[in-house]
């Protein structure tokens, strides 16, 4: 399946000692002797649509030696909700949902184990067609929709701060991505802070960008798993393998942009050109790939936490590193090193 090229060296170096790394083990005999992945089922969350499941299939990466069970959620917060209840093993969110989830009674039953860099495009504050608003400062006293407890929440706060406004200067309306979109297009709110498909669709319906978050956000995409999965050698190994494949998958999308855009377009019901355009622009701005720089990622998230704390949304003393686990750091460094 074109994925066994770099498996040999990792096995030699790690399998015997930690018994935790069997990347792409399907091609290797030794891996199956050290750890039996065939009994493992990895439950993976996806946001929006089945992008990973379909992407892996298209990229020929879905022949995992363990079973993968996918679920689709409306947002990262819901993935963490499912994780708190022990319903998924691997979730992916932006930097914000874990901050909130960590405030749950048991700390949310998760740890952040990895960070992917990705584009910060399509994270914007937009205004409807024909709006008279010219700048963020004009939003004073206006109705602004945002998606609660997401990057939109964060960058809206940052934008207001930059424009010399405080959160209470606007009438902030928490809406889901879809409701926010409907409200904006039908003119029921004066502006919308949102991301992804909502922004693309908003533009299609005549909305214009008031401010972009591309320089506010880190673009970090965090992967979380449960403490039990971390300490379970088999799951641990499966996760490492999965993340390896994930990194390959993003590489594949770069080299197969047309094909991936077609799949995306078909599943999100948008024109292929639009999907392709989004993909190209995003990759140009900041290509999606695994990052093993834990310090940088944690520092970035700490800044977000401090901002939200300043808004009174989080306890001010949150130490972000406490919700991270570095158990995967070594393996991840290996992967990034190999993929360079």
């Amino acid at each position: 399946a074109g994925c066994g090229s770099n498996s040999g060296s990792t096995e030699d170096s790690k399998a015997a000692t930690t018994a935790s790394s069997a990347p792409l083990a399907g091609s290797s005999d030794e891996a199956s002797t050290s750890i039996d992945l065939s009994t493992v089922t990895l439950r993976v969350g996806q946001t929006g649509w089945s992008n990973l499941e379909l992407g892996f299939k298209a990229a020929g990466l879905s022949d995992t030696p363990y079973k993968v069970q996918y679920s689709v959620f409306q947002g990262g917060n819901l993935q963490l909700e499912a994780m708190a209840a022990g319903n998924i093993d691997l979730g992916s969110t932006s930097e914000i949902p874990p901050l909130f989830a960590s405030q749950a009674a048991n700390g949310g039953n998760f740890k952040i184990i990895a960070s992917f860099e990705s584009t910060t495009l399509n994270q914007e504050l937009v205004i409807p067609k024909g709006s008279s608003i010219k700048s963020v400062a004009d939003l004073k006293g206006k109705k602004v929709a945002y998606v609660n407890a997401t990057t939109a929440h964060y960058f809206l706060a940052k934008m207001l701060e930059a424009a010399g406004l405080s959160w209470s200067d606007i009438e902030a309306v928490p809406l889901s991505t879809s409701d926010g979109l409907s409200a904006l297009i039908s003119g029921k709110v004066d502006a919308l802070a949102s991301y992804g498909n909502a922004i693309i669709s908003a533009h299609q319906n005549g909305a214009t960008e008031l401010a972009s978050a591309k320089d506010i956000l880190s673009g970090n995409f965090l992967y979380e798993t449960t403490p039990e999965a971390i300490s379970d050698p088999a799951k641990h190994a499966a996760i490492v393998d999965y993340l390896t494949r994930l990194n390959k998958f993003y590489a594949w999308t770069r080299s197969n942009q047309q094909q991936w855009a077609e799949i995306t377009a078909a599943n999100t019901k948008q024109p292929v050109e639009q999907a392709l355009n989004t993909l190209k622009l995003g990759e140009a701005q900041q290509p999606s790939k695994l990052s093993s720089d834990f310090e940088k990622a944690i520092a970035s998230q700490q800044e977000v936490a401090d901002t939200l704390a300043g808004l009174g949304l989080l306890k001010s003393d949150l130490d972000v590193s406490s919700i991270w686990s570095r158990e995967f750091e070594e393996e991840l460094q290996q992967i990034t090193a190999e993929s360079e």
Partner: protein
Amino acid sequence: MKTSKAKPYFQRVAPWIIPLLILLAWQTLTGTGIIANNVLPQPLQVLNVFIGMLKSGELLTHIGISSRRAFSGFLIGGGLGFLLGLINGFWRTAEKLTDSSIQMIRTIPHLSLIPLVIIWFGIEEPAKLILVSLGVFFPMYLNTFHGIRSIDPGLIEMGQVYGLKRFSLYLHIFLPGALPSILVGVRYALGIMWLTLIVAETVAANSGLGYMAMNAREFFQMDVIVLSILIYALLGKLSDSAAKLLEKWWLQWNPNYASR
């Protein structure tokens, strides 16, 4: 004769057995940690949150706002449903014209209309009112209509033969005859009312019980989530009891209600 003294005692105690058992199981399972706190908080913990929110006045504000929304919607939608049910139950032409359309619309789950309601009516109070009214309209309409239609035709004939005209016929025969069914409709509608509100209050609300529950969900506050469920149950129970009281009062003549 012998059992007549033992029974009332059992009958008074019986309804509480299961709730008490549940509460007991809940406390022991969570208290001993067999069920983790993030799966289900302890009853005492929920009680604490309850007292805390009660003291801060937050809870009562939310309840007040939700109740106002709920009952305004109930009055509008329920009133319309009742009126249309009466008219269609009574007047064949109106029924022929509107009933099948209403039945068609009834089969649209009203929550699927949320996007359209947002687009047409915005995200403020009117949207919530409309959703609740929509939800409440159909059970009231259906039950009023069904109630009128299932009145013993013999009694209607009697009323007509004794010269009762439109209004008197309504007052003396249709309304009282349909009342048991209408009250069942009221109890359904009350259920749907709270159900709708929960969903409606997750759309752009920053107050109300639905908002409180959704907010708690985002912050993984299991205790608040459970508390909000219990409060819904309480509110539901209250409105249901009110409806039951009406039943007892208005339906004295009916041995099926009188005897309970």
